[in-house]
């Protein structure tokens, strides 16, 4: 447990600006009395405390492990280089059980009990959705690493950011031109029958249409499904490309059964690596994937000539050139997601230093500094590549990669430009009060 510190309550009660504006009488009572006293600003030598909402148990636990490993590696590096603004960084990790109810409680705990400066690290969309309102009300900046479209959609609030990983909408639309040009125009989509899948369905359908193609069948699969063959029968015979994306513990079964169904004689397959995240492409039964294509945010196979930053990042996180743990080659990482933790931490550092962040009273300045970020250069701090951040929708945009499976590893065949993943912003968080 982190060591307990004596925190002296500040006698001066700071007025709750927004509350006053919104709720005259009610808020006046709030400032006068019960609960909610602000605390003295932390001493400058005290660590920056980052609340890490981690899926240690529940359905997200396989990802949580790697998120934790990447986060710890990045924090160690940041601290070795002098911390943030000269102050060391301390991670306060709490399990949210991949449950939105518990997630919200954990954010409350970060904000009010652990006195964290920011909250960070959530992956699963439903936990983000459950937690973000709490972060907004408690005015604690909340940096998620989720790839959901929730932040950019404008559903959340001014305190929630996704600066380290691109959202699913951007990923999906940037794939459509390449698919239409190289694989075919009649696409059958197989996707999970819940919100994440609907984003794939809606945005890809529109994007492929814009390329003169069409989605000729939609095959949603319920999240609790354990057997998949019967769904493959719904794939129409004129299909030119099978587009698949699946998440959850049954992903390998899904892909294996696809192989059993078609054998080696199948239409071109284009999959999102989510379908096989944390799973080896060399698993028995996946031989049929040879030659098929995957979207990867960050290719797990380093390739023949890896960038220096990539090699550096792999070394620090403890991942080999194929994206597996250096201590156990069978332990495959969630390579296309976890880099988001690393990069988000560096964004937090950048924004805090730009804001001259001293303590929780500077959170508004921190938000504005984060919103002011525009271009993010490639390097050790951002090994996945350079990016563009849109402060209005709090969402980052970056390059996407298409790899082809050759000899059981993915080889890069195309890397999109950042522009290919851009879309018209639907919201403007900066217009919201701080």
């Amino acid at each position, binding site marked *: 447990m982190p060591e307990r510190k004596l925190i002296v309550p500040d006698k001066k009660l700071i007025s709750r600006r927004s509350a006053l504006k919104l*709720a005259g009488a009610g808020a006046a009572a709030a400032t006068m009395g019960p*609960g909610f006293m602000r605390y003295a600003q932390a001493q400058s030598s005290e660590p920056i405390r980052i609340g890490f909402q981690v899926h240690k148990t529940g359905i997200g636990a396989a990802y949580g492990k790697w998120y934790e490993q990447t986060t710890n590696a990045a924090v160690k590096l940041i601290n070795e280089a002098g911390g943030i603004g000269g102050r060391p960084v301390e991670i306060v990790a709490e399990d949210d059980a991949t449950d939105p109810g518990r997630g919200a409680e954990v954010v409350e*705990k970060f904000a009010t009990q652990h006195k964290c400066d920011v909250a960070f690290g959530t992956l699963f969309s*439903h936990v983000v959705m459950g937690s973000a309102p709490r972060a907004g009300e408690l005015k604690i900046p909340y940096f998620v690493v989720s790839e959901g479209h929730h932040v950019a959609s404008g559903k959340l609030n001014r305190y929630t950011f996704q600066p380290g990983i691109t959202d699913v909408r951007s990923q999906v639309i940037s794939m459509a031109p390449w698919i239409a040009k190289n694989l075919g125009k009649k696409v059958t989509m197989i996707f999970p029958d819940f919100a994440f899948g609907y984003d794939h369905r809606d945005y890809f359908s529109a994007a492929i249409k814009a390329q003169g193609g069409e989605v000729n069948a939609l095959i949603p699969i319920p999240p609790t499904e354990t057997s998949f063959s019967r769904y493959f029968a719904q794939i129409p015979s004129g299909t030119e490309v099978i587009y698949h994306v699946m998440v959850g513990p049954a992903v390998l079964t899904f892909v294996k059964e696809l192989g059993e169904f078609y054998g080696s004689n199948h239409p071109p397959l284009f999959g999102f690596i989510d379908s096989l995240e944390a799973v080896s492409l060399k698993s028995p039964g996946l031989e049929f994937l040879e030659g098929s294509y995957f979207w990867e945010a960050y290719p797990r196979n380093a390739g023949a000539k890896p960038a220096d930053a990539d090699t550096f990042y792999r070394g620090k996180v403890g991942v080999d050139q194929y994206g597996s743990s250096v201590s156990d080659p069978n332990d495959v990482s969630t390579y296309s997601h976890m880099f988001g933790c690393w990069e988000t931490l560096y964004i937090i550092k950048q924004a805090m230093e730009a804001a001259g962040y001293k303590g929780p009273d500077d959170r508004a300045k921190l938000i504005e500094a984060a919103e002011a970020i525009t271009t993010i250069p490639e390097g050790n701090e951002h090994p996945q590549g350079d990016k563009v951040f849109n402060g209005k929708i709090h969402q980052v945009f970056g390059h996407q990669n298409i790899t082809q499976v050759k000899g059981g590893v993915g080889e890069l065949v195309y890397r999109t430009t950042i522009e290919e993943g851009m879309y018209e912003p639907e919201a403007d968080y900066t217009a919201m009060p701080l």
Partner: protein
Amino acid sequence: MTARIVALHGAVIVALFLAQFVASDYAVLTITRIMVLAVYALGYNILFGYAGLLSLGHAMFFATGLYGAALGVTRLGMAAPEAFLFATFCGVIVSIVIGFVALRASGVAFMIVTLMFSQAAFLAVLYFGDITRGDEGIVIKDGQRMFPLFGVPMNLADPVLRYNIALAFLAVAIVLCLIAVRSKIGHVLVAIRENESRTAMLGYDVKRYKLIAFVLSGSFAAVSGAAYALLFAYAGSTLASIQYSIHPLLWTLLGGAATVLGPVLGTALMFLLVDFASGFTSASLLFVGVALILLVLFFPKGILGTLRQRYWRWLP
């Protein structure tokens, strides 16, 4: 009602009111949540503790309130208080319908019937994913949580207001429970629990009383769900899953079934246990599991139930 019963329950409510002036920020937030969920447990206890009917499907009523409120606000354009009433109304209707059917079964069959109905409700939330956004769920925006009450603007994002709303719900729930269990209804329910056929022979309409308990119980759960959605701004399918049917059972057992304050105590203790455990271990589920087993083995009557048995015979 004896003076000491009034004094005890009054004291609990007053203590919770005063707590907000001394408690830390975190404690205020935590107690708010505990109070909202305690309403759920109080309702569960009416059916389980007093009428002796173990439901494994109360999440469907909680979810009815949750989605009634969330969809009322986000889809039907209601103000928060209207959405709350709408959600409660939905809860009453759903519990009447489900109760009418499920109460034809008893014992283990009743548990499984409620479990299956609840599972069907959970799947329905996923099935209508285009409306409910399934597992990802619905966020209620700040603007949708503000409303004027008698001309005074209210903002549910304000922690102090929220604390007192939750307290008001809890206080009303405790008072209603007290009245119910000390009235004829309560006595008949206990009689049904102890010996259903004899109660029927004495001329009581057993079915009607069981339905009353079921509907009260389900409505409390819906109220709690609606309050949860509006106060914490989120509704998602996880909150309709089996896990959330087991929670109130656990809380009630811990605090003491068939005691009015037992579920409140149980909710608070279990909440704090999980909160404490998750700070240093990822094995919080282990604590819950072990607690359940130990309770069944050694304290089948729960904390207040045991205290009542040994010392405070007057405890309602």
